[in-house]
C-alpha cells in the first residue's frame, strides 16, 4: 500500500497507461485523509449561488470538503465565505441553513461576528480581557480566494491556487452552457429555491466519475426508460438530437475538467421537444433559434453532463442542475443539489421543469435512484482485503483521443473522444483520475500549473 508514499499515486495506484486504477483510492482511509489536505484544501469548490443571498445580511450555510462554511453578503453587499466555527472554542456560529442576520453570534460564550467576518462582540472585553485581546486578529476565518461567476460562487482555501478563471481555462464555455439561459443570454439562469441534500454510502469519487461522462452506465437506467418520464411522454429525456448530433467526450488534461456534449450539425433545425406541453415546447423552440443567432457555432453545442475538478458536477440539459459531492469520510458522500431554470422563462415553463427535475434527479428521482444503488454496492464490494487487490478497468477507448477535433467547421476546445459510433469511452474518467493523481503528488501549485505544459513540450520533441 502506497498511501503514505505520495510519489506512488501515478506509478502505483492510478495507472492510466494500462487503464487500471486501484480500488484503494476509493476505500482507503489514509488516502482519504490525504485527499482532504491535498485536494479539498487546495482546489476551487462550488459553495452556492448569489441568488440565494440577494440582500445584505443574507446567509446560506454551505460546505467545502468536510468543513461547514457560511456564504453571506455583508452590509456593503460584498460576498464572503467564512469557516463556520467560532475562533474562541470552535462552536458553529451558525446552525441554520439560511436566513438573514445582522451579526453571527456564537451561542457558547457569545463572541459575535459581523457579516464581513470581523469580531465585533466579545463579552467582558474590558473586564475579563482587560481590553487587551486583539480583536482584529480573531475574526472569522475566511477563504483565501473567492470568485463570483454568472451567479455561482466558488472558493478556495489556497492563496497559491490560480484565479478561478485560470483554473477553469478553456473549459469555461462549457460551464456557460449550464449558467447561460437556453436562448444564449449571458448568465440568464436562476436557482429554484430548495437545495436537496442527502447521503449516499459510497466514496465521493463514484458520483464524481459518473458525472464526468460515464455514458456507459445508461443500461442501469433501463427501468425509467421503460416507465417513461421524458418531457415528450416516453423514455427518460427528450433526446432526438442524439440521432443527428456528434456525441463527444471532451477533457482538459491540464485542468482535470471534463464533459459529455453534443455538437449539432450546421443549418439543421432541432427536432421538437417537450411535446407534453405546447407552452414549454414553444419556449424551447424559440430559445434554440435565439441561441443559434446569438452564439453562432457555439450555439450548436449542447452540454449533457460535466465535472469541474474535483467535485462539482453540472447537468447542462434539462434537468439542469449543479451538484457538489461533499466527502463525509472515505465511505460516505453528502450530495447537494441546486436546480436551475432560465430566469426569464414563463412560470408555466418553470413549473413544468421543476416537476420534471424532481421526477428525474435526487433521491426521489426515478433515474438517480438506481445510480445510488450502484455506487453504494460498488463501494461496499470493493472494501475487502481481497477485493482491493483487483484494480478497476478504465481501458475503454484508450488511444482514440483527438487533439484539435473539428466538425463542420467548429473547432472544439479540449481533447475529444468521438462517441458517435463508439457509443461510450472512459476518456473523461481517465482525465479525472490523471488530475487527481497529480494533485495527490504535487506539493506545490507550480507543479500543478506547469507540469502539463512540460509534458506537452516533451511530447512535442
Amino acid at each position, binding site marked *: 500500500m502506497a498511501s503514505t508514499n505520495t510519489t506512488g499515486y501515478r506509478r502505483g495506484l492510478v495507472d492510466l497507461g494500462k487503464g487500471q486504477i486501484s480500488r484503494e483510492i476509493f476505500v482507503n482511509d489514509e488516502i482519504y485523509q490525504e485527499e482532504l489536505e491535498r485536494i479539498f484544501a487546495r482546489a476551487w469548490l462550488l459553495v452556492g449561488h448569489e441568488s440565494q443571498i440577494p440582500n445584505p445580511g443574507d446567509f446560506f450555510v454551505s460546505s467545502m470538503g468536510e468543513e461547514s462554511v457560511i456564504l453571506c453578503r455583508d452590509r456593503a453587499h460584498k460576498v464572503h465565505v467564512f469557516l463556520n466555527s467560532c475562533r474562541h472554542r470552535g462552536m458553529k456560529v451558525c446552525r441554520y441553513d439560511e436566513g438573514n442576520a445582522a451579526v453571527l453570534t456564537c451561542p457558547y460564550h457569545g463572541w459575535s461576528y459581523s457579516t464581513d467576518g470581523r469580531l465585533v462582540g466579545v463579552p467582558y472585553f474590558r473586564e475579563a480581557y482587560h481590553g487587551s485581546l486583539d480583536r482584529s486578529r480573531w475574526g472569522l476565518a475566511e477563504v483565501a480566494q473567492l470568485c463570483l461567476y454568472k451567479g455561482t460562487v466558488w472558493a478556495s482555501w489556497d492563496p497559491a491556487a490560480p484565479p478561478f478563471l485560470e483554473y477553469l481555462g478553456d473549459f469555461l464555455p462549457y460551464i456557460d452552457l449550464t449558467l447561460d439561459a437556453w436562448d444564449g443570454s449571458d448568465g440568464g439562469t436562476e436557482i429554484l429555491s430548495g437545495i436537496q441534500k442527502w447521503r449516499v454510502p459510497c466514496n465521493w469519487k463514484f458520483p464524481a466519475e459518473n458525472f464526468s461522462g460515464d455514458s456507459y452506465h*445508461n*443500461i442501469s437506467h*433501463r*427501468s425509467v*426508460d*421503460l416507465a417513461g418520464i421524458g418531457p415528450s411522454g*416516453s*423514455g427518460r429525456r427528450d*433526446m*432526438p438530437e*442524439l*440521432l443527428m448530433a456528434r456525441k463527444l467526450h471532451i477533457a482538459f488534461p491540464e485542468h482535470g475538467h471534463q464533459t459529455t456534449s453534443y455538437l449539432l450539425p450546421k443549418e439543421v433545425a432541432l427536432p421538437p421537444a417537450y411535446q407534453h406541453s405546447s407552452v414549454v415546447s414553444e419556449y424551447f423552440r424559440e430559445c434554440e433559434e435565439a441561441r443559434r443567432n446569438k452564439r453562432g457555432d457555439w450555439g450548436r453545442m449542447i452540454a449533457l453532463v460535466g465535472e469541474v475538478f474535483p467535485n462539482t458536477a453540472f447537468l447542462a440539459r434539462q434537468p439542469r442542475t449543479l451538484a457538489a459531492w461533499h466527502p463525509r469520510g472515505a465511505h460516505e458522500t453528502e450530495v447537494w443539489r441546486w436546480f436551475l431554470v432560465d430566469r426569464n422563462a414563463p412560470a408555466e415553463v418553470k413549473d413544468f421543469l421543476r416537476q420534471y427535475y424532481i421526477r428525474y434527479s435526487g433521491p426521489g428521482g426515478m433515474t438517480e435512484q438506481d445510480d445510488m444503488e450502484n455506487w453504494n454496492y460498488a463501494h461496499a464490494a470493493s472494501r475487502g482485503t481481497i477485493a482491493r487487490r483487483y484494480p478497476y478497468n478504465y481501458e475503454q477507448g484508450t488511444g482514440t483521443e483527438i487533439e484539435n477535433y473539428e466538425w463542420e467547421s467548429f473547432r472544439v476546445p479540449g481533447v475529444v473522444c468521438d462517441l458517435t459510433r463508439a457509443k461510450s469511452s472512459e476518456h473523461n474518467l481517465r482525465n479525472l483520475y490523471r488530475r487527481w493523481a497529480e494533485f495527490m503528488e504535487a506539493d506545490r501549485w507550480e507543479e500543478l500549473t506547469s507540469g502539463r505544459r512540460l509534458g506537452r513540450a516533451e511530447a512535442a520533441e
Partner: protein
Amino acid sequence: MSEPVNIRLLQPGTRVVLEGGATAEIVSNPQDGVWVFARFLTSPDDPDRIGSEEMVFAQEIVEVGEAS
C-alpha cells in the same frame, strides 16, 4: 427513436430487430434485463454472423417482432 423494450419479458422464439438492421431469434433469456441469448437470422453488415448464437445487449434491440 423507438420505445425501449423490457427484454426481461421476451420469450425464447421471439424475433427481434437489432440496430443496423440485423434480425435474431431469442434462444434463451437470463431475465437480467440486460442481455438475451439470440441466434442471428439475417445480418446485412456481417453475413458471417447468420446462424451464430450471441449475447445481445438490450440497447441494441430496436424492435420486437412476432414469436415464431
